[in-house]
């Protein structure tokens, strides 16, 4: 359950046995061709995979350097890569005989994905969401309710994602006998980071095949945004043994030199959060601090332990992009390619746009466009009109 020194199971004793059960059943499932076949069937027939690989012709020409390709996870059912993992975990929960799902959510993306698969697989679903987020994301809350999920407002702490996750874990501790906790990113105690990675690998596997078909060679550089880091791991992992440069992009918020950012690897220190040893944004006393990013999906004070490991061994480079740079990249992608990316994904795009002009025309940059920006239009509008986000 470790990635080098990172990972582990830093959870109450009560959860050790449920985690062991999940681990055992996961290994069995992953080794079972019929499980994989069913997982793929749902991805294809329900979520609409394979997602497209789109050549960003206009941006490539404008920037005048490397060819840019986008892996279009925004075209998934519910609008982001989140569904890949939600389907995988729902199938595992069903295999384990659990028909009650717990999930945490920040802005609501994973909550919607969890509620979606719960509906599709005939399961109950409770989504924990900070009370502040419940207010800010009223439409996503209603969306989850339409999908039949129960949304539980969390009033502890700062009433945002971190607290929602704490509360989900607390609820799970109490109900682990019949509930399955569906974590939305490559975070949490083992085996979650590994499990979520396995259910997101499809991104990189498809992209690899599509890239070879389109260009006859692998990309030179792959870029993905990193909050918890599930789309990034899913994209990078199938390329880790290749000579491919991987860049994870964290949210620099108002700048990594301010206190308002979510650049966990760039600025964090080793610590434990939500059951896992990884890089964490914390104060000198080990109290976890509140992160900041305009992107709700990157606004997390921890990071997947495998990213911490990949950063530590130098296999993946982690950089950061500010709110301002991300919004500019979002606008540029909308205007030049007709794709409004999620603000999360716009962080990866911003980095790609910085790098592309420096590279030769023979090089290829593959960007994981992890989600669509429909959910963010209000935020972008407020930002551009100068209204401060809370």
């Amino acid at each position: 359950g470790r990635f080098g020194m990172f990972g582990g199971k830093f959870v109450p004793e009560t959860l050790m046995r449920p985690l062991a059960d999940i681990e055992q059943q996961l290994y069995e499932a992953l080794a079972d061709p019929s499980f994989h076949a069913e997982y793929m069937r749902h991805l294809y027939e329900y979520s609409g995979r394979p997602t497209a690989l789109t050549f960003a012709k206009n941006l490539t020409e404008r920037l005048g350097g490397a060819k840019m390709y986008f892996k279009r996870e925004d075209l998934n059912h519910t609008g982001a890569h989140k569904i890949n993992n939600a389907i995988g975990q729902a199938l595992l929960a069903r295999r384990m005989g659990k028909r009650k799902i717990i999930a945490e959510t920040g802005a609501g993306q994973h909550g919607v994905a969890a509620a979606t698969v719960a509906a599709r697989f005939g399961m109950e679903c409770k989504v924990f969401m900070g009370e502040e987020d419940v207010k800010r994301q009223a439409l996503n809350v209603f969306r989850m309710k339409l999908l039949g999920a129960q949304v539980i407002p969390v009033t502890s702490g700062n009433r945002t994602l971190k607290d929602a996750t704490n509360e989900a874990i607390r609820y799970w501790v109490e109900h682990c006998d019949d509930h399955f906790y569906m974590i939305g990113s490559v975070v949490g105690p083992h085996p979650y980071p590994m499990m979520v990675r396995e259910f997101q690998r499809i991104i990189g596997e498809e992209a690899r095949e599509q890239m070879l078909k389109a260009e006859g060679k692998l990309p030179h550089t792959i870029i993905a945004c990193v909050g918890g880091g599930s789309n990034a791991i899913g994209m990078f992992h199938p390329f880790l043994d290749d000579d491919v440069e991987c860049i994870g992009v964290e949210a620099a918020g108002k700048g990594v030199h301010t206190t308002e950012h979510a650049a966990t690897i760039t600025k964090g220190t080793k610590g434990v959060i939500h059951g896992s040893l990884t890089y964490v944004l914390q104060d000198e006393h080990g109290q976890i601090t509140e992160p900041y990013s305009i992107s709700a999906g990157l606004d997390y004070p921890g990071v997947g332990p495998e990213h911490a490991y990949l950063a530590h061994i130098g296999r993946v480079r982690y950089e950061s992009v500010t709110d301002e740079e991300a919004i500019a990249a979002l606008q540029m992608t909308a205007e030049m390619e007709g794709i409004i990316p999620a603000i999360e994904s716009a962080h990866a795009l911003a980095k790609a746009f910085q790098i592309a002009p420096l590279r030769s025309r023979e090089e290829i940059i593959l960007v994981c466009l992890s989600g669509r920006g429909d959910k963010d239009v209000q935020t972008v509008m407020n930002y551009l009109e100068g209204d401060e986000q809370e």
Partner: protein
Amino acid sequence: MKHFIPFIVAGDPCEEVTIDLAIALEQTGATMLELGVPYSDPLADGPIIQRAASRALKNGMTLTKALTLIGQMRKKGVKIPIIVFTYYNPVLQLGEERFFALAQQNGASGVLIPDLPFEESEHMRTLGETYDIPYISLVAPTSNERIAMIASKAQSFLYCVSSLGVTGVRDSLPTKLHEFLQQVKSYSRVPVVVGFGISTAEQVERLQHVCDGIVIGSAIVQKIEQLQDELNDVHTRQEALRVFSQYVASLIEPLKMRVRKNESETTTKTTKTVSTGQTD
């Protein structure tokens, strides 16, 4: 026996009062004290202790300060063992060795880390032995075949989590609790205490026959919360402490009857199993 182990949060409602509460608890019959270190993300705790931690954090409490507070309690004459209850991350930031050194220096008697299960705690357990500050392990109703493993390495005593869930007051305890406790006792070389959710004299009465001690946290912290204004005000503090002690006494009335009966036995057992760790 039996042990009565109250839990309070360092710095709730303020450092000075935490010391007074420790003294009052010892006088009321506590045979050990669990001192909680407030944490930003206390995922094993229910809302009552979460709120107490928030209050303490606002007062600037840290792990280092909490350890120092134990030293101050010792100076004020608190003799019962004091167990540091802390989440792992503050320990990690302070440094594990430095933590034990400070704990030892301040007279802590044990450490309990709710988010550091057996598999992750080997280094801490070793250090616990080195510094003679036992690392207390927990077992839970879901532990099953893990009980034997955990019990085999238990230091000082085993902490049984009474039910699935986080800390907090509960109207009723699980029906299978007795069975679970019997099972743990059958494996354990050390005393077995039970905690999580115990909040009434009735529950204490029922449980005392099947364990070696009882931890009461949320019920006590809730009473502190109710009395916080009076406790913070030096003019009303003594009266509030009296009310507090009275409440605590009522909770453990069933135990006291036994304590009186078995006084000598209990004292002996306690000193045997948990070092008071006083260095001064």
